[in-house]
């Protein structure tokens, strides 16, 4: 070690702490196929469960005949609602305060709904068993349109709610109505709209889609009848919450339930919810006394677990002639499918949709959201966004463009004159949020300059002239978006899930030889927590990140936390990590002072050591301090060196960004080519730039898919039309654009390290950028708005409707 320089810079570099692009520790196992995902788990005697699913979107279940299935070799049990009812498990509570059938109880409400659970010795026998179960259905009228669902004579979907005029979120005004959620000042907003110079109005639909991580959902449930302990390995983005919910609905004491999230092959919100497969696997394990695995197929995944979006957002935006926005009004009709299983903090039935004033200083606003039942799958998860933030961002970024058209203004300039100014932060929004920090003008100007905005507009104008002159059939669209996210849910005072406050946690133990283990209540699904959280600890207490093991996902060992979704890990668990580290540092300071025989206040932290103030040659390294914590009797101090922090964030964090897309569109075929995609993100303090960049690439690719073709579609009979990856659009490396990333840094003032979270920003920001590019290409011909996804035929139809096909 003596050849190593001891300058603070060199010592700091060796820590691989915050700000460095540390290579990921996870990758050593993943790159050689040694990850441990749920389907990799095998136990002695393990059984496999698979579902009989409904072919109909709305039907009575007249009878279920399992006799033939029970004769299939290897089939051990067929579980239906009748078997679950005595246990009280034929229905389960949803995260949104509704309840959901675990197995069809008298009727089915969407195609693909779970009807019976076949348990067999292996997945082949289970599949044969599923094919042999005979179910008789009596079809009922189907409603897949949320507006038609609210008509007076619409079919009654939820007969179990008959007579219930109040739901979990207030009054229900129709048998298919779930809730109305209102925020803001309706009267004042409508008064502004009535008196405004200009009001732009549009219906903006954010279509139904699906997070579709490459690994589907699944679990292995194992009830050990000897010690009474239930262990469930599964694709859980929130293992502790699953444990508590499992205990509450099963009656098994919480200490007898152990939930383990092994490696997770992507989540994107799909793995937040509790699905019938988990419940059925647990029940099957209790019944058979053997471990039971359930892993859904891709079709199951796309048909039954966790859709996202499906918001019809009617907007009105008011402005002065000069383009200063004076008010915003939004009414959203939210299609929740057959059960309200949206994954939102309990007090927010439409998530944080009230961030829909976006990056703009809008003095008055009003938002109302009506949740509606239809014959579609339940879900409503935050697909790589924080609880409906992507819907909100898409809405406002489309409304800005629509307003720019009404005003005849450049949309970049319209944004600039309405941005919340740097000096207005912390900023109170008209819909109730306190934005922590931001510098939108700086980001915007940097972005426009980086892409050469004026030159692009000139090129676009030339192309338009060429098009009109018959020299080309390709148009250029320049898609702009400036988004503000709201992540890091959240303060316990207003954020909870089923009553569990949305704090998060970290426990750090320093070993005698100076290495450490940290455990968190979160769980990585690819975000690289084991890499980045160790970096936070490295910087905070001066132990090299390479000497820190990080563990998540085992409820028997990790401190309680609410899990990983909504970009909350860095803002909440990252803060807990820093705070736990600071507790250790405080104790280390006392130990160092004792060892150096000075007063506590006379030592100061210096990268990886405490040194006597004014005498830096007198120091104790963290390694020495750690050893002392275990081998010296220090007056007034307990032995050991560990700490735990439960962090209740004082506020959300508000990452933001400026995204610009340049797209070429073939007017005759509806095909497109992304020529440039520039993404500037401001996520506050940057922990690992390499990982941030990777998150931006991935999120923007999801946004590209959503904007340009990815959808969950149903026909009028409620048949699911996009149940395989042939029709559910996931772009390959060939279609996916190249991204240019950039950043500004505006730290969060309330976060211990100033970090804001980034994982979801690129999905939130890129969807409007791609969509606005399509719209922008056709703006000269009079296009105001056209719904996503902008797949070939829908883009072609824009051109057709504008008369561009001659």
């Amino acid at each position, binding site marked *: 070690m003596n050849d190593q320089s001891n300058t603070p810079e060199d010592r700091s570099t060796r820590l691989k702490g915050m700000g460095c692009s540390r290579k990921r520790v996870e990758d050593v196992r993943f790159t050689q*196929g040694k990850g441990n995902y749920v389907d990799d788990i095998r136990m002695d005697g393990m059984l496999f469960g698979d579902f009989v699913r409904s072919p109909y979107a709305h039907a009575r279940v007249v009878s279920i005949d399992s006799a033939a299935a029970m004769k299939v070799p290897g089939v051990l049990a067929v579980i239906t609602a009748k078997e679950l009812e005595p246990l009280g498990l034929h229905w389960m509570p949803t995260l949104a305060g509704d309840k959901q059938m675990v197995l069809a109880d008298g009727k089915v409400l969407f195609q693909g709904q779970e009807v019976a659970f076949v348990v067999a010795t292996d997945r082949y026998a289970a599949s044969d068993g599923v094919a042999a179960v005979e179910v008789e259905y009596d079809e009922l009228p189907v409603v897949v349109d949320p507006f038609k669902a609210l008509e007076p004579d619409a079919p009654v979907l939820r007969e179990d709610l008959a007579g219930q005029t109040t739901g979990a979120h207030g009054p229900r005004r129709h048998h298919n109505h779930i809730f109305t959620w209102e925020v803001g000042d309706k009267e004042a907003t409508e008064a502004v709209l009535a008196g405004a110079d200009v009001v732009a109005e549009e219906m903006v639909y954010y279509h139904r889609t699906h997070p579709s991580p490459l690994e589907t959902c699944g679990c292995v449930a194992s009830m050990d009848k000897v010690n009474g302990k239930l262990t469930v390995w599964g694709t859980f983005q929130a293992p502790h919450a699953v444990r508590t919910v499992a205990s509450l609905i099963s009656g098994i004491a919480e200490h007898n339930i152990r939930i383990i999230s092994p*490696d997770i*092959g992507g989540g994107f919100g799909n793995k937040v919810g509790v699905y019938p497969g988990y419940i059925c696997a647990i029940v099957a394990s209790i019944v058979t006394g053997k471990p039971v695995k359930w892993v859904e197929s891709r079709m199951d995944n796309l048909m039954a677990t966790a859709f996202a979006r499906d918001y019809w957002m009617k907007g009105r935006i008011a402005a002065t002639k000069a383009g200063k926005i004076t008010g915003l009004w939004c009414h959203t009709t939210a299609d929740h499918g057959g059960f309200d299983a949206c994954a939102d903090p309990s007090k927010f039935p439409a998530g944080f949709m009230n961030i829909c004033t976006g990056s703009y200083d809008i003095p008055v606003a009003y938002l109302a959201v009506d949740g509606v039942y239809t014959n579609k799958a339940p879900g409503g998860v935050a697909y790589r966004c924080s609880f409906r933030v992507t819907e909100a961002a898409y809405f406002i970024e489309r409304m800005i463009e629509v307003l720019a058209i009404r005003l005849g203004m450049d949309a970049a300039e319209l944004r600039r004159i309405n941005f919340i100014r740097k000096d207005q932060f912390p900023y109170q929004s008209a819909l109730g949020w306190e934005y922590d920090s931001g510098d939108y003008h700086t980001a915007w100007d940097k972005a426009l300059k980086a892409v050469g905005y004026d030159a692009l507009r000139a090129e676009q104008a030339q192309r338009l002239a060429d098009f009109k002159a018959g020299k080309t059939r390709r148009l250029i669209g320049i898609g702009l978006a400036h988004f503000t996210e709201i992540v890091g849910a959240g303060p316990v005072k207003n954020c909870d899930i089923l009553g569990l406050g949305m704090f998060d946690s970290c426990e750090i133990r320093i070993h005698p030889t100076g290495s450490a283990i940290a455990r968190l209540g979160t769980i990585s699904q690819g975000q690289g927590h084991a890499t980045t959280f160790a970096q936070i600890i490295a910087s905070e207490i001066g132990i090299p990140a390479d000497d820190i093991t990080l563990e998540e996902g085992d409820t028997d060992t990790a401190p309680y936390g609410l899990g990983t979704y909504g970009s909350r890990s860095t803002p909440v668990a990252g803060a807990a990590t820093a705070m736990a580290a600071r507790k250790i540092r405080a104790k280390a300071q006392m130990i160092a002072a004792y060892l150096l025989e000075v007063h506590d206040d006379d030592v100061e932290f210096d990268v990886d050591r405490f040194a006597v103030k004014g005498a830096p040659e007198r120091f104790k390294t963290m390694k020495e301090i750690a050893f002392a914590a275990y081998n010296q009797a220090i007056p007034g101090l307990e032995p050991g060196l560990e700490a735990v922090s439960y962090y209740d964030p004082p506020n959300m964090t508000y990452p933001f960004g400026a995204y610009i897309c340049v797209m070429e569109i073939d007017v005759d075929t509806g095909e497109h080519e992304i020529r440039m995609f520039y993404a500037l993100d401001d996520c506050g303090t940057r922990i690992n730039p*390499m990982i941030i960049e990777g998150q931006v690439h991935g999120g923007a690719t999801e946004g590209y898919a959503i904007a340009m073709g990815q959808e969950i579609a149903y026909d009028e009979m409620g048949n699911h039309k996009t149940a395989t990856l042939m029709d559910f659009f996931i772009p390959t490396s060939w279609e*996916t654009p190249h991204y240019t990333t950039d950043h500004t840094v505006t730290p969060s003032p309330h976060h211990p390290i100033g970090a804001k979270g980034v994982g979801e920003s690129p999905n939130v920001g890129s969807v409007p950028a791609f969509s606005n590019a399509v719209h922008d290409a056709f703006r000269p011909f009079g296009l105001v708005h056209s719904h996503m996804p902008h797949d070939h035929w829908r883009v072609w139809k824009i051109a057709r409707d504008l008369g561009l096909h001659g």
Partner: protein
Amino acid sequence: MSKMHITLTVNGTAVEGLAEPRTLLIHFLRETLRITGPHIGCETSHCGACTIDMNGKSVKSCTVFVGQAQGAEITTVEGLVNADGSLGVIQENFREHHGLQCGFCTPGMITRAHRFLQENPAPTEAEVRFGMAGNLCRCTGYQNIVKAILASAAQLNAAKEAAE
């Protein structure tokens, strides 16, 4: 259905097992042989997570019956590590260039890249993107995967030149 006696060479080792004819190769690898690097992502031969190398071809093992593979030489991602257990060139470059996040597509992706670079040792970026288009990734947006493969090509070519 009577079971078939299957023999394969997997990652250089002769292996055998019994399987129903309908057993998909991916299940035989993962459940009978416990080679769990290749994953199941879509089951309809779109995603490529199950990609293995079979007789010198990149193959989606979810769409091959084990009988069709009888006697085949198979390489999976586990077989691409160096003899000393260290990461192979492509594996190391995926790590170096952050070409993976959740890791679920990675075994198929790396196994495909291995065959692709055998066939096209000095590809352009466009050729990499076209040659890797049978493997879906939901996390990375592919940009760093492409970077990792281009870097691997350069490194493998430099090593070849040095050896010659």
